[in-house]
């Protein structure tokens, strides 16, 4: 994390989070954010980019993810080793609480980082899969706003799915 505004030899970008924290990232990391890659390709990229939908806590994680992926892919190791390495990293990276996970998913969607979006969606799906409805509601604070009659109707409509 740095707030220096000088540009060094290597092309760097300054990303400003919603709460005003500035992150310095190299181009190889920045291009993993599809929104920024498009700006660069369209020659509209300014060195200073404000990201209005992402907090500094989440942006730090996103940058950590992109950095690791950029380094592993350009590291010159064989494809299979790199794949293994990314898999372990991804697994550990997803070892966060549900709220962080949701914000990461939302950020990956907003910043258009395909691999992170897939990863978070898959992880969220696996959290939902092994739980009952009541457990899912509790885990994500989903408020049941059905009336008793309405809920019964939905359960009846999809009775085959509830066994």
């Amino acid at each position: 994390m740095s707030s220096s505004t000088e540009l060094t030899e290597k092309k760097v970008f300054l990303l400003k989070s919603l709460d005003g924290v500035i992150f310095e990232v190299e181009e190889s990391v920045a291009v993993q954010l599809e929104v920024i890659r498009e700006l660069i390709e369209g020659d509209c990229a300014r060195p200073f980019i404000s990201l209005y939908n992402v907090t500094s806590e989440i942006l730090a994680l996103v940058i950590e993810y992109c950095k690791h992926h950029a380094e592993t892919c350009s590291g010159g190791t064989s494809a299979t080793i790199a794949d293994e390495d990314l898999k372990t990293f991804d697994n550990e990276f997803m070892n966060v609480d549900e709220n962080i996970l949701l914000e990461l998913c939302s950020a990956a969607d907003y910043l258009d980082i395909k691999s992170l979006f897939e990863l978070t969606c898959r992880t969220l799906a696996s959290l939902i899969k092994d739980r009952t409805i009541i457990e899912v509601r509790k885990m994500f604070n989903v408020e049941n706003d059905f009336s008793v009659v309405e809920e019964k109707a939905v359960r009846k409509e999809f009775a085959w799915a509830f066994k």
Partner: protein
Amino acid sequence: MWEENLRAQLRSRYAPRRRRRQDSGSSKASKRARKTPIPADDYADPDRISSLPDTVLRHILSFLDTKYAVVTSVLSTRWKDLCISLPNIVLDDSLTFKKRKKNFEKAFEKFACRQILLRNVPNINRFRLKSNFIEDSTIGDIVCAAICCKVKEIDLWVGDSTTVGILPLELFICNSLVVLKLRAVVELYVWESVSLPNLKVLHLTDFMLDGDRSMSRLFRGCKFVEELCLSRCSFGNNKVLNLSFPLLRKLSIDYGDGNFMDFFDDSNSKCKLIIDTPNLEFFEYHGHENEFHLVKNLNSLVRAKISFITKVKNWENVSELFNKMHGVKSLYLSDSALEVMYSNCSSLSVFEALTFLELSVFDIRILPNVLEIAPQLKEIVIHK
């Protein structure tokens, strides 16, 4: 466009029921709106997941088997209709009913139709249906509807069905289709004008491709496939199985074990195999010692797995195949295939590039012969 017409037709067949449901749904919604909202706790955690956009929630749900996605519809009103328009649809009725239950079957069938026919997000990426219970005509309708939604991948396993003509003809003129996996013990009859220009992956399992014409029509219509797997398929009375695909990279032919052959007949053993695949990298064969001398082109081959159901009687056929595979780097051989290799090594051309050999049996006494034919060999792995 025929897709449009077909979709309209199918809609009219299934839509009226939906309209009633929609009406009742909206009246319920207005009733709910009249209720005073429950004040939210100031200190309660917000419901972050429900505030994600529909597209994101649908993407999350599309990682689940559709059955689990459907269960989420009772989470809250926000989730109620999300499972109707998923980009990936994975329906498996064996997951759903342990035993047959008439009203469940109907409801499942209705859901499958609604899911595809009445979706408000038009395109389907992947459509998988494994079904023992759904009626044949309905399966036809569902597949048609999926085709209208520009489906890219169809994976259909209609387990116990033995009906002829279960598959709609539209399936074979679908432009959007990239992956087609069919598994069913049915006789496949293919229409005159097969056209699957974008198909890259074709898997046929437990199929009976009868008659010369059905098979050649099908293969002619999907010239540009890159992956072809034929598992436990019977080629009926075909005398020649012509596999000429300029872009094919992976080819797998598996005749299964002997049991399956009894089910049809053993005519496959008389079927000649023509293989003309200049870009083939991976070749897997498990079957009879066919007349391989019709192998024309395997110049790009890197990896191969060769095994035979029975002991090889006619070495010449198999030697012919081995000679065409000289560029291979990694090779698996069953015991009968290995026997041909080491007993016949003087008449075989040398495997110049072979470094990795997998075997099911090995006797140290054959090592000199093996090394003679594969001088670059670095590793032998033996599977028990």
